[in-house]
């Protein structure tokens, strides 16, 4: 009796396991995509401006004007996430105001992520949330637009942005806490 029960139960168990494996395999691509997005979001959220970026000790070398706009991403020789021409322009505009410089550099870094880190709606939302922090850190609509004009300075970059936003557009929320990466 027990043997017969075990025989049936074993088949039931095997069938359940089979369906479970099938479900996992079916959802794997989606889960895999989610994990990639999660990793990318984590990267977006952890990329912060540092004091070295603000005080000028980490400035990029002079850039080649022809090369800087040759690609959408441009050149970031010092690898701090801010395109070199934008970084140098902000330093030139605000040589004495560390507070304004820090805020604008942060916003420029976050806007640059639209070129480097967005590949779906999840990553777009993450970048937009970071941009919200940068914007609030600047606390000045005119200066925020000033940075946007510097980052999206060519027709190609503007069109890329427009297309990307249209492709992945969605609703999103922002977090008002700790808006400035560098506390001054």
């Amino acid at each position, binding site marked *: 009796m027990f043997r017969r029960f075990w025989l049936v139960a074993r088949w039931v168990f095997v069938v359940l396991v089979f369906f479970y494996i099938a479900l996992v395999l079916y959802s794997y691509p989606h889960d895999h995509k989610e994990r990639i997005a999660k990793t990318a979001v984590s990267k977006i959220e952890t990329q912060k401006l540092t004091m070295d970026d603000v005080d000028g000790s980490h400035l990029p070398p002079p850039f080649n004007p022809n090369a800087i706009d040759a690609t959408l991403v441009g050149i970031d020789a010092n690898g701090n996430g801010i395109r070199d021409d934008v970084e140098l322009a902000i330093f030139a505009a605000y040589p004495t105001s560390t507070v304004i410089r820090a805020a604008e550099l942060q916003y420029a870094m976050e806007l640059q992520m639209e070129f480097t880190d967005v590949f779906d709606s999840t990553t777009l939302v993450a970048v937009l949330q970071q941009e919200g922090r940068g914007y609030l850190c600047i606390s000045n*609509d005119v200066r925020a637009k000033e940075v946007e004009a510097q980052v999206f300075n060519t027709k190609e970059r503007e069109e890329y942005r427009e297309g990307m936003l249209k492709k992945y557009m969605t609703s999103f*929320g922002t977090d008002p806490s700790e808006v400035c990466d560098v506390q001054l």
Partner: protein
Amino acid sequence: MRAQVFLVLALLLALTPSLASALCTNDGATVVYVNGILTSLADAKNDLFALENRFYGDGGSKDVSFKMGYNPSHLDGYGDELQSVTQALGSPISDYDLDTILEQIAPDVETRKLLLLGHSQGTFYTNEMYDYLVHNGVPPESISVYNLATPANAVEGDGTYLTSGNDKLVNQVRVWDAEAGAPGPLPANILIPPQPGDDTDIYGGHHFVEDYLAGAAPRIVSDIDASLAKLTAEGTSSDTCFKTPSLGLVYDAQKTAFSLADPAVVGVDSVASKATSAAESALSAVASAGSALTQVVNAGIADAVFSVFPKPDAQNAGTAFSVEKALYGSSLTEADYEALLNGQDLPEEESAPLPSKPQPKQPTLSHQDLSPPPIQPVAQPVPQKVAASTTSSLPAAISISPGFGGGGGGNVAIAAAPLPAVENPESEATSSQVAEQSQDPEQVESSPSDDETSDTVATSTASTTPDLGPEQQPTLPTCGPATLSTKGDFFSSDKDQADYSAAGFLVYHFENTEDGKFTLTWNYFDDECNTSGPVDTHNPLSLTLPSGVLGWSVRFTSMTHFDVWDDQNNLIIGSYDIPAQLPVYTSIAFDGGNFDSSDDVSSFVSRGLKIFGTGEPPSFTNSGPTPAGCPSISATGYFFDPSYENAEYVGGLLRVHLRFLTPYNDGRHFNAEGLALTSNCSFPFLSFGFAPPQTSLTPFIRYYSFRMASSTHWILWDDENNLQVHCTSCEGDIASGTPLVSFFASVDGNASTLRMTPFPPTSP
């Protein structure tokens, strides 16, 4: 065997994705911003950021979070155009965007207290969202609506709104609605001064950041605070704050249709032929995506229908308008669309209430709750049957509307041909709605006439004109004489009636005892009824009333323009452009003269009434006590006002609100400097010597402020227009750790000087 089974199970469990769900709590609050149409995501997110910036910058609670409920454009805005029209009538043709917004914001909303904040067409969605949410389990006490620049005729729930009298698009919608017999937008309840560029922008005054936030941020923040303060939330935490709409096959098909059709129609406005071609592509795409589904056809093809029509130019504006009018009055069936698509004329229908949904509610907001209060009629009309002089005409640009956008602008075609003047019963009705607050407007008769034409183009400013006897003179605050006074026998003192148009501007009616020529001049007053200076060096307007005409009126259409009307024939007989942007609290008094009579000279002097009914100077609370041992504000001479100083700390930074004396701020330059003082208030020797004056503020404003933008940087701010002033000496730095800061200014050498009370630059 067992070990193997457990191993397999453990492995499978490890691979299973973890699920986490947000909690809905009673703490904090969420503001959901819904943009207008033709607003790109880039512009919409900047709108949101700017709103947050102003909210938190003005000390808003960090417990309040902001979410974007993105309202995308479809078919290059044409789809939204149709959607807007049907929304205006309370029967939206498609719930696709509404469902999408609700679906998208649901995971982000983690508080029960919810404020839906819409701008432009987004205000239709906030109203619809409120309606959906309260009918799907959200307690009305925990949710509210606050709408800006709303073309809607109501705010759901106990919501409030803010619409500027200078909002050209909303004012245009009033005319369109009046033409279609549709309920018009809520009356204007604020006058936001035009911002740079608004004069040449046909949708000037409507933009979210450039107009509303730039000109009325303190009021908007205050309104948001007030709306949030009224919300209450109870109950235990739950996984979600609201139930999202069930999105079925129809929604998916619509999504597919839009994803195919939207890119195909982008840029159709450039060339008419391109428009037709793109539209055909769009229609083809929509049809292939789901032609079998009636609702897809309704939503998709209906949204595509306008793309068949090129955006109108001067020649076909009338056709476009008739299409709009037909749509206003129709219930939009597939047969209509087919007729349109086949180039057939739609039969024009009389406007009628839509059967599918209840008509939009009349304003539900409490006018008493608004601060400052909304437009109130200056006159106290008594029930009396009169013919309302409500002639208005359409502005020159009539096209298939770009819709109710404005957050970021859009590619819109502008038609330039003037269209015939039309009656505007709606503005009258709206005015009457306000009048209803205080008296019975029954028997007020309007005389709309579609056939009536006028060569003169003006915007809608009409209002009711009940006759008043002298005993009904208004008692509202006036500058100058309390009543109209006359001398001689040409002008009558029996009629002294004033009202405000739906857009909020003064309409002042007069009467003469005989027709003929007279001159009209005027004077301006500030908020304290001081006579303003030489704003304009105008010559008197020379006016002539046609034979037999006695009644005439002055009607403002903005802070910078008024027309003089022959009330009997509803014709404009004179116009004037004020060459300066005066503050919104400015009052005006008219006087006139008749010199034709050989034996004596007749004249009149009117009351001084506000040009914009609710225009008030900015108001601040003085919460910064003078540090012990420091002198209070002092000023000498004619320019700076020593009687006004309000200090406060916002976000921990000092703001000291100051005022000029009237009438001397004509934009002239003066010297200014932020002073870093020691803790014992020791002032340095104060003199600018021969330094050239390099500071100037917006001409004709009185209210400005000295503000710390950071602990070491000061700026000057135009408090009336809520703008930072940019000039050579309009900002500067002080040393870090400075205990006290003051502001010193002088004009014309030392003819007039100001020394502000010293305050700590940051919150003590």
